């Protein structure tokens, strides 16, 4: 700063006078002009770009302001056929191995006299061993045990009202849409995996091929076209329910009206929008 102050006079207009300090002045003038034009671009830019003629976002026939999605899971009905898990992988191009899932199913088994359940899922070696491509299945490994109680619990992203993953994202690559889905912008994701760590439900995974965090989108490309997510579409017993909570007649509104629902890990304060019935206190 000291050095700068040794310039002779300085009466404004940029670059007008070419003294011995002209280099710096010219630079400043240039910079000023560049700034002005950049500012102009940035002011005009957003006005020029985006939004279809109908004004609806994100697509011409789907306005996210009009929807408020919710998801229901009835664990009483789930038969553990894992058709949802395979359908999700087909629909969304998820790696077909036992480490990458947007949705998965856990089996809770209480053996006679046991205080805590045994929990297994698709990642368990025994279950991998009996699975085939597009035919994931649970191994019948408790058939010789005395089982007191057992049930399946489908799991997936809870699309929280206060998502921890969104809070920790350093680049704004993950966000909550106006209609309630938590999505990942694959161009802005730098693959740091803070979100994978932050999710209390373990719902995110790292996509090694695209080098980014990945997760359930509620099949956003389907719901924005008026379809159900693939897992809901494929479930043969109606254990999965999806719909618009703004619409009183939608399956999810009925589900919420007819049942007393729970959410997973309420103590985390994430306020999930996936609602469960038929789960046990040990399920989290």
């Amino acid at each position: 700063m000291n050095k700068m102050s040794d310039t002779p006079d300085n009466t404004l207009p940029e670059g007008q006078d070419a003294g011995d300090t002209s280099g710096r002045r010219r630079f400043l003038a240039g910079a000023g002009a560049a700034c002005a034009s950049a500012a102009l671009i940035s002011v005009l830019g957003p006005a020029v770009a985006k939004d279809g003629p109908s004004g609806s976002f994100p697509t011409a026939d789907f306005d996210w302001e009009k929807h408020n999605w919710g998801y229901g899971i009835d664990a009483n009905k789930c038969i553990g056929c894992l058709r949802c898990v395979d359908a999700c992988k087909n629909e969304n191009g998820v790696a077909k191995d036992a480490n990458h899932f947007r949705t998965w199913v856990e089996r809770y088994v209480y053996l006679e006299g046991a205080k805590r359940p045994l929990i297994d899922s698709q990642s368990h070696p025994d279950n991998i061993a009996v699975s085939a491509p597009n035919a994931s299945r649970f191994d019948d490994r408790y058939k010789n045990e005395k089982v007191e109680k057992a049930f399946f619990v489908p799991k997936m992203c809870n699309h929280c009202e206060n998502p921890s993953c969104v809070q920790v994202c350093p680049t704004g690559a993950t966000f909550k849409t106006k209609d309630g889905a938590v999505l990942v912008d694959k161009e802005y994701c730098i693959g740091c995996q803070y979100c994978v760590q932050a999710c209390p439900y373990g719902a995110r995974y790292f996509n090694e091929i695209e080098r980014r965090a990945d997760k359930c989108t509620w099949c956003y490309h389907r719901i924005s076209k008026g379809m159900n997510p693939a897992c809901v579409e494929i479930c043969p017993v109606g254990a999965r329910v999806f719909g618009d909570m703004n619409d009183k007649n939608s399956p999810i509104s009925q589900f919420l009206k007819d049942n007393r629902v729970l959410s997973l890990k309420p103590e985390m304060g994430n306020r999930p929008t996936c609602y469960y019935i038929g789960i046990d206190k040990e399920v989290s």
Partner: protein
Amino acid sequence: MEEHTEMPKHIVRLSLLLVVFLVVAFSAKAYFTVDSFYKYGHYRANSVPDIAAPDPAYRGPAYCALCHVDRHTQWSSAGHKTVKCEVCHGPARGHPIDPNDPNKTAKLPRPTAEYTKTLCTLCHMQLTARPQRDPPQQPWDPAIGKSVPWNKGVSQVIPDEHSAGQPCLFCHDPHQPKPIRIKEEPAQVAQTPPSSPDKH
């Protein structure tokens, strides 16, 4: 008068520099942030149309009904009407094959008899934690001509005992699993004889 009211020159220069710096900083930020960032929040709004763009893979039974009318009619009136076509046949994206359309090259699999041993047991094999059919399954009653409606769960068999290793397809039509049929004369006939007339 001038000398007293004017700010010292170095202060003027400094504030000018500060102004220039701020303008540079904010314009650079505006310039390097894509248009749609902050449009709806701290994210790139234009990523949402991208995420909403892909073609769905699963189309639902109504789509199949456009062409496979008979199959759809049979299926929708029988005990498997909650089991969507694409559970057994895979996602419909790219089906049917159309030589004029490069995106239409997917041949939907027709599960082989042997494969039904895998396919059907995904849902019907007796398994810990799998809820039993409620109400319990009744034998097919030709007088009523249909199955008992069910609330939840699924009917389960122990494959080895039920079919003695024979493909499920021999006795059950996947699109109408009851009443049972004998598709081909299987090598060994299972202990349970067909309870209703042969259906082909």
